């Protein structure tokens, strides 16, 4: 049986929504026959996430909560995954609905040979005016993947869905929400072996173009 570790902490107003959306993710996984190790609905510690990942190789890891460039958060003060334990994502598929973590942590996970890292390079933003649409978009990549699509196909389908949802919001007179949803879609990334991370840094891009992504991303560079 396939196993998924679903980490969806709950500790503030915004995480009430991410936790709520994680229930749909859990249902999708269970529909497809996954055993879900559900860690959430409260503050979550680094130790319990590490233990769940160490005990279960080849699991799909899902994080739905606050994120930052270098961390997935379990509470206000404790990261459950960060640059110190990113190797736990090696040879795993990781699906995030959190802010910013594709910017550094996702790149590090990819360098550690993660099979896939799905996440955002900007702050994930949503509005109370269009919760159903944001939930649908946030869970869409997981849904497509569980339907048997490749990560590359799932990424394109999620971006296409966001465009359709943004149009629906425009037609409903929800203009601020439509822009925010489109912005989230633009910030969405998925890194796999055949979809390496790209960089905003000219030096990094040059290194990648000369040496290829595997070596180009390993070269040290200031501020990258």
């Amino acid at each position, binding site marked *: 049986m396939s196993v998924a570790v679903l980490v969806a902490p709950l500790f*503030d107003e915004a995480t009430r929504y991410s936790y709520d959306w994680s229930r749909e993710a859990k249902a999708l996984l269970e529909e497809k026959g996954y055993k879900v190790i559900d860690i959430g609905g409260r503050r979550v510690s680094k130790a319990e996430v590490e233990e769940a990942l160490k005990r279960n190789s080849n699991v799909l890891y899902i994080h739905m909560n606050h994120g930052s460039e270098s961390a997935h958060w379990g509470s206000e003060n404790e990261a459950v995954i960060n640059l110190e334990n990113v190797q736990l994502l090696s040879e795993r598929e990781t699906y995030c609905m959190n802010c910013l973590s594709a910017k550094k942590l996702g790149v590090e996970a990819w360098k550690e040979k993660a099979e896939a890292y799905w996440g955002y390079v900007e702050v994930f933003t949503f509005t109370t005016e269009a919760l159903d649409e944001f939930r649908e978009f946030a869970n869409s990549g997981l849904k497509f993947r569980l339907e048997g699509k490749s990560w590359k196909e799932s990424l394109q389908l999620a971006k296409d869905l966001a465009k359709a949802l943004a149009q629906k919001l425009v037609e409903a007179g929800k203009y601020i929400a439509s822009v925010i949803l489109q912005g989230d879609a*633009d910030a969405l990334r998925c890194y796999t072996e055949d979809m390496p991370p790209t960089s905003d840094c000219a030096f990094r891009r040059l290194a990648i173009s000369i040496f290829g992504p595997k070596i180009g991303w390993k070269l040290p560079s200031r501020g990258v």
Partner: protein
Amino acid sequence: MREVEIIVKALKAEASQKPKEIIYAGRESFTYKEFVAMLNSKKLQKNHKKLVESFLQSARKMFNENPTYRLKMMQLAGVEK
């Protein structure tokens, strides 16, 4: 009127009609009115500045690529075609 001015004027009108809606951006939250006020503020914290820049970039992209959105923005801003 420049496109950003049209967008901001239109979204101010939208925000005034929706006082209860909240935007969640990471660990922060804003009413629509608070958020739209940041769009043409010159004094923003670094993280708010980034948020505003990203939002305006997406808004301008939609304004230029989505005729329905563009028309609605112009109507809300009271700008003739």
